[in-house]
């Protein structure tokens, strides 16, 4: 563990920086154009920009951000899959660049979900294989595998190939793999992504239990605001590789006052609707259109944060009607983590670089 002014952390990053070179693809005859673009790299993407994080032992910590904000890069740097360009990452007291074997033994991770298993093998075969990579004694591994299969309700189908499993069941095997060697720290990257609500609930309960009953430190990245709100002790917002805010979900939500948030569900809004509402409500801090997939029955939403939007609801509704935009629903107040993120970054969580 790392101590910082008497505080003890399971995970700590200090000015962690990771850059990726953007390669310019010039095709087979690209060398002929070398003189035009002497540098083979077309710039650099800063995935992590002096990232500082401190996660306490036993804490269930959420890392929230849009695609390309640096969530997965953070997890890959912590798990030693990527080597950072600058800065330090300490996991369970071990430096990720100097004590890699100890860091790896301290971690269990779920990154990339169900695709990261051997589909032609059974759940038991998968777990047996990974147990050997974690240097587990055969008899101990066998007992542990049985225990995990039982806990995750996979025992009945443990000897079937994963290709015959549902997405949710495969995700459970991925979680069992992360827990095999009973690590004190878990890195979970979007563990409920693509799962049906029933399986997602089971996985969330499992995560909560691992933190509360087994005292594991969990770093969870997710797109789902409700999930982070419901599970996490503390949440960090990450945007463009930087931490924008860290606090408990309640304290973060308190940064946006009630009645400071108006959300209007609309159908087929024109592209200039944001500018139009901004013109009507000049004191609003953020006006954001969150497009929905209307073919899938998912309407678009307009978020208005800051200022006094509740006093101008009549004006907004009249304006939308004038533009012949169909209104589905209108909510005032009760800010969510997404509202806070939008207010802090001007970006919604479902957008960003991919």
């Amino acid at each position, binding site marked *: 563990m790392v101590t910082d002014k008497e505080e003890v952390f399971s995970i700590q990053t200090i000015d962690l920086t990771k850059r990726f070179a953007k390669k310019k693809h010039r095709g087979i005859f690209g060398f002929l154009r070398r003189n035009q673009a002497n540098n083979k790299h077309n710039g650099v993407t800063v995935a992590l920009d002096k990232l500082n994080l401190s996660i306490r032992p036993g804490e269930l910590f959420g890392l929230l951000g849009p695609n390309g904000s640096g969530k997965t890069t953070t997890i*890959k740097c912590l798990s030693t899959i990527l080597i950072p360009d600058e800065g330090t990452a300490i996991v369970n007291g071990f430096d990720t660049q100097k004590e890699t074997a100890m860091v790896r033994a*301290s971690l269990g991770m779920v990154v990339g979900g169900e695709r990261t298993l051997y589909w032609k093998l059974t759940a038991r075969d998968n777990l047996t294989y990974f147990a*050997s990579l*974690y*240097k587990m004694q055969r008899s101990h591994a066998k007992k*542990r595998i049985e225990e995990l299969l039982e806990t995750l309700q996979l025992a009945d189908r443990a000897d079937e190939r994963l290709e015959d499993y549902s997405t949710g069941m495969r995700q459970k095997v991925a979680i069992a793999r992360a827990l095999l*060697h009973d690590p004190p720290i878990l890195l979970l990257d979007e563990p409920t992504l693509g799962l049906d609500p029933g399986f997602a609930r089971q996985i969330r309960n499992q995560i909560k239990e691992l933190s509360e009953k087994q005292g594991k430190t969990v770093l969870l990245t997710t797109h789902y605001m409700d999930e982070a709100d419901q599970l996490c002790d503390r949440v960090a917002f990450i945007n463009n590789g930087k931490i924008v805010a860290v606090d408990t979900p309640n304290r973060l939500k308190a940064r946006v006052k009630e009645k400071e948030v108006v959300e209007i569900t609309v159908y087929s809004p024109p592209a200039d609707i944001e500018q139009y509402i901004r013109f009507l409500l000049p004191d609003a801090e953020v006006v954001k259109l969150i497009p929905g997939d209307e073919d899938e029955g998912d309407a678009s939403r307009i978020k208005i944060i800051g200022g006094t939007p509740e006093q101008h609801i009549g004006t907004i509704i009249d304006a939308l009607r004038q533009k012949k935009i169909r209104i589905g629903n209108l909510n005032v107040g009760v800010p969510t983590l997404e509202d806070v993120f939008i207010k802090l970054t001007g970006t919604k969580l479902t957008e960003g670089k991919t």
Partner: protein
Amino acid sequence: MEGAYQQSVLRSNLSVVWNEIVKNNKTLLAYPAILIFWAVFPIFWFIPFILQGEALVGGLQSANFAQITGSGEYIPFIVIGAVLNSYVNTLLYGMGENIRREAYQGTLDYVLAAPCNKAYVLIGKAISESVSSTIFAASQLTISVLLFGMNITLGVMLPVFFITVLLMLGLYGMSLMLAAFSLMYKQSYDLSQTIGYVFYIFAPVRYPTESLPGWAQIFGKLIPLTYALIIIRSFMLLGTDFSAVYTEVIALIIIDAILLLAGFYIFSWMEEKTKKSGTISHH
């Protein structure tokens, strides 16, 4: 962490190798068509050589061939060449492809993020590839005994096996380099095919070394397959023992050592490089 580091280093390393072999072979056998390939292909493989021999010298015996090689039998000569060459094809292609497949299915990150020494994972992969090569080679030898009356004395098989293992060690070194290439560039198939053809031309697979021009013979001496073929043919066709070929055996061991050391070094270097560039997880 309770389960980690609970057994001796040797045992845990052997367990990694064993479980890698089990995993690869279970995955391979999940595709039943491979069994048909193993059963049928070795028979088909012989037909062009028999027809070629008939057309060129009117049978499977040649006086000119005997003058160069010391044995007039054409079929046993090329059977040995083909069997050892099949190890080249499988091992050079197999390791790089295996790494590429792991990256594609997303399991490579998990293998690399585990605390075990990755060298043992690679050794397990290499041995897995050798198992299928050996099954294929055994089918070819069995067919040549049953259909073409090739004479194999059991006493010679132990030294032949020993030399085959030495050949495989050199090939493991090369396949590690190809796996490293696959880690960085996400494919090594074309390169392994090219190297396979270079071996096929400059090593005495289908013709004796003496048929090559002088410079090509010198180049051929850098290839481990050349020595393995000379030694094994000497054992099986001329009935010699180690004393007749000890210089070739020493040369093979030296080339193996160089290739293995270079292979492990290049793989570790490339792993580090891809972890820095971020291309390790790409596919």
